[in-house]
């Protein structure tokens, strides 16, 4: 069956809610409004106000309430609207959700799923265009994932709901309209492995989330230039599947990491460090990064485009890396 990324997320939530009375959805405008990005459209009508719970503008409060509800035996899905507002709730995510299991010596589990839209590309300007996946991926105790396909939008959410740990799911806002196939009996996806989205021999393009379409496009353009690029979708940002990344780069001996976050101290830096630690002697060229420019994302279209990773930049960077062959 063909559906959109948005519908796939919704389907995963509805399936879980029909099956498991412990699952509920809570967040700003998830109910009567139908979801800021229409992800939960119609769910209020099916499940009612207790289980599709509109929350006031209190990110810290309702994320903390999600943690408490998880401790209390529920399986909450908290929607944070966007990563931009998640800063207000970070204390609860880091100091409670991530740490409680450890601080309690293993007694308390927090089976909480937090979903949020992320990314730029819609001219929403600096306060509404963050990509802070890397911050979450830094924190032990959290699992962090970024579904980049319709199947993963469904399957990773289903898997997150079965996980006894806090799982943070990043949904790039430009992916919601993406169309794809999903079998009627699709179940949970794995929350462990990276995926090779396009096999190739000459260079590994490593990316995740909203940058996957651009990277696949770059790979197609590279193919026209005679460069056979492998595209690796990280899928899970914490814990990282280093084995898959290293295997790809050991084969291709070159890598470009594509990440919409700012370059300095971004997720791409971790991938580069991982490659260097695990495959230094297999590398024919230094792994390169294509990230956002070191600037708050500007409103004006041409400036925003210049600030974000684009297929053309990926292509140029990959060509330079391949040209570096000795």
């Amino acid at each position, binding site marked *: 069956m063909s559906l959109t990324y948005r519908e796939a997320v919704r389907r995963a939530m509805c399936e879980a809610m029909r099956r498991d009375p412990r699952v509920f959805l809570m967040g700003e405008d998830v109910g009567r409004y139908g979801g800021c990005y229409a992800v939960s459209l119609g769910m209020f009508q099916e499940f009612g106000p207790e289980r599709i719970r509109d929350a006031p503008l209190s990110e810290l409060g309702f994320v903390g309430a999600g943690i408490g509800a998880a401790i209390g035996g529920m399986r909450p899905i908290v929607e944070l609207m966007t990563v931009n507002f998640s800063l207000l709730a970070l204390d609860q995510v880091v100091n409670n959700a991530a740490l409680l299991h450890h601080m309690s010596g293993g007694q308390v589990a927090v089976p909480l799923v937090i979903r949020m839209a992320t990314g730029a590309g819609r001219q929403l300007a600096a306060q509404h265009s963050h990509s802070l996946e890397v911050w979450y991926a830094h924190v032990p105790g959290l699992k962090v994932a970024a579904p980049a396909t319709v199947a993963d939008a469904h399957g990773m959410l289903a898997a997150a709901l079965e996980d006894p740990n806090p799982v943070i799911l990043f949904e790039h806002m430009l992916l919601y309209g993406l169309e794809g196939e999903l079998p009627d009996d699709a179940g949970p996806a794995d929350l462990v492995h990276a995926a090779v989205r396009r096999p190739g021999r000459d260079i590994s393009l490593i990316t995740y989330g909203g940058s996957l379409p651009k990277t696949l496009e770059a790979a197609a353009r590279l193919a026209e230039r005679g460069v056979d690029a492998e595209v690796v979708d990280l899928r899970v940002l914490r814990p990282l599947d280093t084995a898959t990344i290293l295997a790809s780069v050991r084969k291709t001996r070159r890598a470009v990491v594509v990440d919409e976050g700012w370059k300095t101290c971004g997720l791409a830096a971790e991938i580069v460090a991982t490659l260097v630690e695990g495959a230094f002697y297999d590398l024919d060229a230094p792994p390169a990064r294509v990230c956002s420019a070191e600037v708050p994302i500007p409103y*004006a279209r041409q400036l925003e485009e210049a600030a974000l990773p684009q297929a053309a930049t990926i292509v140029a960077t990959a060509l330079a890396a391949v040209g570096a062959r000795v």
Partner: protein
Amino acid sequence: MSTELPAWPAEVDLDRGRAYLRDMLRVRRFEEKAAEVYQAGHIHGFLHLYIGEEAVAAGALPELRAEDAVFATYREHGHALLRGVSAGAIMAEMYGKAEGCSRGRGGSMHLFDAARRFYGGSAIVSGALPMAVGLALADKLLGVPGLAACFFGEGAMAEGAFHESLNLAALWHLPVLFICENNLYAMGTALAVSHARTDLAARAASYGLAAEAVDGMDVLAVAQAVAHATRAIREGLGPHFIECRTYRFRAHSMFDPELYRSKEEIEAWKARDPITTFAARLRAHGWLDDGAMAALEAEVAGEVAAAVAFAEAGSPEPVAALLEDVYA
């Protein structure tokens, strides 16, 4: 609503009365044009219109002085305009042009004009309140006159930042004017779905500051309340909170299917349109006739058309300037 009009306040003369009407009309027509050019693809991103709420900004801003500072939300075109930012600079900003009041970096949600102490244009709900408190603290520590006026929606009052800001302002006795634009909805979330206690002025008063509620569809009522509050603040009586009860006639932003409220509710509020009701009062008072109204509309239409022309003629910021304005 009673059909009888309230008595005309003595302190509002002909010029002031017409100025209120002009201000509201300028905002209304500007917003309508913004929606139009948005639909035509000249503006992108989010666009939040102030249509229906004009009496709040039009009543409040004339009471502020040059030395005061203003903080507003993403629904702030009207505030910027009535603070004196030119319609052209605002429209050019929304077009993303270098001539925009934020040089195309901010867009609709981030209008700035430091010379007029207009400090945005803040798109994190409740994010400006702590800054307004701090600006008032600066005024106090520097010993200069001036107050910080901060506009925000009723939804923002559920945020922790609201709580911390009101306590700080009251605790430190700072010259802050908190103006809550209670339009009954935060996106699709109705007041009673957000707040256990919906009497917002009472909630604010619990912090130990002066608080009152006024009819936000009545420009004179808003003006009177703000005049009284600013006088008290300038006399050193500490912060003040005003809840303006108003309504947004349009969708939250350009992406909102408005599933959460009824057509009837909207129509009932539109019957209280701040512009038509105020125009009727001016007419009843003998200060407005068809000719004057037509002249006003023409003047405002000219301003808005000039703004669009200015924006269209503006130049895009060169991509080479991408890394500018990151550090001072």
